[in-house]
């Protein structure tokens, strides 16, 4: 490993070292604030290195990891999401009746896994990354298991996530094994197997299908979505934010990389599978969200729908290959970035509210009544997040949706486009419901004071969501650079 390879691995190394440093630190000093600071600074440094490195040539570091601009960009996004997550966790854990320092170790491990996943072009590193992320998340989802306030929900969520994630991993692993049996290599770039199939390509077809199932579990594409609402509802709000933001970005980045490499007849099968999942996720995801009464659960279904929309870019890649690739890739990256910003905004609000009163995450929407007039900043941010998720112009969500429409029209995916329109129209109803609840007259007096750092995080995310919507040019140029 030469110096260049080492520097390009810098973000990963920093994130890995956060967990080691924290382990040592906690052994000597138990200080929640210090722990959180170390984590945040680590994430900032790692994200800085990831972004600063952009524009440099792609580095294949060992056969396992490829550090190109795509992985730098999305790795950076994952790290920023993790940063927001660590930041909002502080206030949340401060009010929890649970020891909280170890949480940050798990968070940094999960972030490391996500970064590895983004950068992997080898099935082994993919599996390592995915498992590192998932295993840390089991613990994070169930972190409040001994807390008196929220043990029931969180324990259920943790176990559910663990079992289903385990099942999906075994599917995925079996798929990888079959692909290995076909290709004799674990690299995802199967074009290197130039001397023809070693076995019947049935191995490849079944293997790819199983791999897709594994990915679909993580992306919570219907019909592999069962865990999503329960886990979203039961997990602590910052963890839900991580699940909705970082995990989705990382897994999708891998899926994109994998499908870009894929060629041949088995693509038709994958395309069929993707289309079916897209249709189901867009329609059923939105339909199931309509009558949800818990905000986190509602956002769970909303994320199912959003992940359904983004399949458009995968389908474009699978249908048109290289011709559609650059637009599709650009669209996917932009969508992931915009989705991360708005979904983190929503979960930051929930987490900050839940830090004051746990009812905001476990209770019904009715608890949010009148919040606009009592907590204008928090409620205003939540309204902005809802409008962004609904795809209103001047917010990040619109730019993402615009890209998807562009990709769909460009690749002539008319059915997916019409379902995208239908799904988004259905989705309006429940986003508006949340806004309407916030605008109702207040029911009770609630006095909550936000700390400066909480306000700062909120304002940063609001700024990001608006900036992406109002003046996306810099980000678009950046993304174009990353996929060039």
């Amino acid at each position, binding site marked *: 490993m030469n110096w260049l390879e080492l520097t390009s691995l810098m973000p990963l190394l920093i994130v890995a070292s956060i967990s080691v440093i924290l382990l040592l630190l906690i052994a000597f000093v138990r200080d929640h604030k210090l722990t959180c600071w170390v984590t945040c600074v680590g994430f900032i440094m790692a994200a800085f290195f990831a972004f600063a490195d952009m524009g440099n040539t792609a580095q294949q570091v060992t056969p396992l990891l490829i550090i190109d601009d795509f992985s730098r960009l999305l790795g950076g996004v994952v790290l920023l999401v993790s940063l927001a997550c660590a930041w909002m966790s502080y206030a949340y854990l401060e009010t929890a009746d649970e020891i909280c320092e170890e949480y940050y170790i798990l968070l940094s491990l999960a972030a490391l896994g996500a970064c590895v996943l983004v950068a992997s072009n080898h099935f082994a590193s993919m599996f390592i990354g995915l498992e590192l992320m998932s295993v840390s998340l089991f613990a994070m989802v169930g972190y409040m298991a001994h807390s008196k306030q929220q043990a029931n929900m969180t324990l259920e969520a943790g176990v559910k996530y663990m079992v289903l994630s385990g099942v999906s991993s075994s599917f995925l692993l079996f798929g990888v094994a079959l692909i290995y049996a076909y290709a004799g290599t674990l690299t995802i770039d199967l074009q290197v197997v130039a001397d023809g199939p070693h076995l019947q390509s049935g191995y490849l077809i079944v293997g790819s299908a199983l791999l897709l199932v594994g990915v679909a579990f993580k992306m919570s594409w219907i019909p592999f979505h069962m865990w999503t609402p329960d886990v979203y509802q039961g997990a602590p709000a910052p963890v839900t934010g991580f699940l909705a933001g970082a995990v989705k970005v990382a897994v999708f980045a891998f899926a994109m990389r994998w499908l870009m490499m894929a060629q041949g007849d088995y693509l038709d099968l994958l395309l069929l599978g993707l289309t079916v999942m897209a249709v189901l996720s867009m329609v059923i995801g939105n339909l199931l969200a309509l009558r949800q009464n818990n905000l986190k659960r509602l956002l769970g279904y909303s994320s199912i729908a959003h992940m359904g929309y983004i399949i458009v870019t995968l389908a474009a890649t699978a249908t048109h290959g290289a011709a559609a690739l650059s637009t599709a890739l650009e669209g996917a990256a932009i969508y992931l970035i915009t989705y991360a910003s708005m979904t983190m905004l929503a979960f930051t609000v929930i987490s900050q509210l839940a830090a004051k009163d746990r009812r905001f995450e476990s209770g019904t929407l009715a608890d949010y009544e009148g919040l606009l007039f009592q907590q204008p900043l928090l409620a205003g941010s939540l309204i902005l997040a809802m*409008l962004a998720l609904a795809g209103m112009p001047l917010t990040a969500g619109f730019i993402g949706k615009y890209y998807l429409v562009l990709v769909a029209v460009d690749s002539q995916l008319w059915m997916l486009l019409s379902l995208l329109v239908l799904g988004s129209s259905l989705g309006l109803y429940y986003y508006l419901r949340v806004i309407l609840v916030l605008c109702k007259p207040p029911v009770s007096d609630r006095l909550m004071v936000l700390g400066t750092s909480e306000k700062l995080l909120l304002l940063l995310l609001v700024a990001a969501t608006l900036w992406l919507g109002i003046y996306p040019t810099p980000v678009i140029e950046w993304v174009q650079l990353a996929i060039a």
Partner: protein
Amino acid sequence: MQLLGIIISLLGGGVLALIVGRQSASASRWLSLASLVVASIFYTSLWLDSTSSLSTSIWLMHMDWPWIERFGIHLLLATDGLSLVLIGLTLVLGYVALLSAWHEINHRCGLFYLNFLFTLAGVVGVFSALDLFLFFVFWEVMLVPMFLIIAIWGHEGRRYAATKFFIYTQASSLLMLAAMVGLVLLNQQQTGVLSFSWFTLTQTDTSGTIGMWLMLGFYIAFLVKLPGLPVHNWLPDAHTQAPTPGSILLAGILLKTGAYGLLRFVWPLFPDAASAFAPIAMGLGVISVLYAAKLAFAQNDLKRLIAYTSISHMGFVSLGIFAWNHLSLQGTVMQMVGHGLSSAGLFAIAGLLQQRFHTRALDKMGGLWSLMPKLAALSMVFAVAALGLPGLANFIGEFMILLGVFQVEPWAASLAALGMILAPVYALIIMQKGFFGAPVGDKADVLDLNARELLMLGLLVAGLVLLGFWPNLIFTVTAAPVDYLMNLGKGVSI
């Protein structure tokens, strides 16, 4: 620059109103008034420019800044005579709505005026944006504040109405977004240029099936906003449940954005598809005119009744636009302005009655003429304006539309002319049920109009009479742009 000045003064005024609204409600009212005045000053200077420059070019001012270079999206604002007239209408109705809000809106004033001024800014943007992407942004942006106005300050069924309004508009505009992207990519295929500029896209060859599909995407979005049958269903609820200033904005100017879109985008961008589709669109227009008039007659809720008359009147607009000749288009513009003024007046009256009697039900009114002669007389003016009495603006509009349509599709004109019979029926039923006869219940102590209310309604009556007797005030300004659009829409290259 004046256009930007108008938009920015409205947006800035809104933000300031929110800030001062926390301290004092009346400060936010005066501040909104001030920001409207500033916008009007910019507008006046724009109008003065028009007298000198309209003779040389139909475009008054042109502002073109790059925005999202990746897709050739620009901040492209321009006005021609048509936009100028509609922006003028927007500002006038802004004053009227502000006056009606003055005492009706008592809680969360700052937030109300923020939404109010943002809606106005969005509408001005819609009327002046000539980059399709920018147009779409304004189109959507005026939706959110209007939604909040209905949802927070509306009447008993406000949340249902607001949601319905939002979903109808937003769902249809997603179709428009898809069609817009399709058009831009089609243009890119033909010319190699990626641009959202209206000036570039009107040169695109949109003949063929694809043109028809794209046209339908735009048409449906505008038909929902207009609204026309069969997608008019959101309107009666939204108009009825909105607070008075909201109803005035909705009926007076938000509906006009749909008509404006048909004029500015559907025909010029898709000449072939639009002319092929014209008979169907005119058929829908005729059905709107007659069916909505019949529905209006059957209503007991005063605001609902007025809402249905709007649909009926917008049917005429639909007819006029799809006849696409000089007469019908000029008539359409006049109808838009006339309906803007008269429906605003009727909604203002309904608001005043509701403030006094806490009901909108016609059968609980009755005999009001003897109690409130001033209000009753002014109601009469708006009612006869709505039914198309000669001497008021609406008559000129409807008459010219019918003349224009008759040249193209005599059957459509003949059927729509029946609307002229139905209009008096629903307009006079308001007068008969509400104002004539013996007073119902104990209403002895009601107050007639005060000075503010007189000013508000007087402004509208003055406009109606002025345009009724001197329609050339508008026609001279819109003649050139209407011809320009007409030629574009006939596929004549300019």
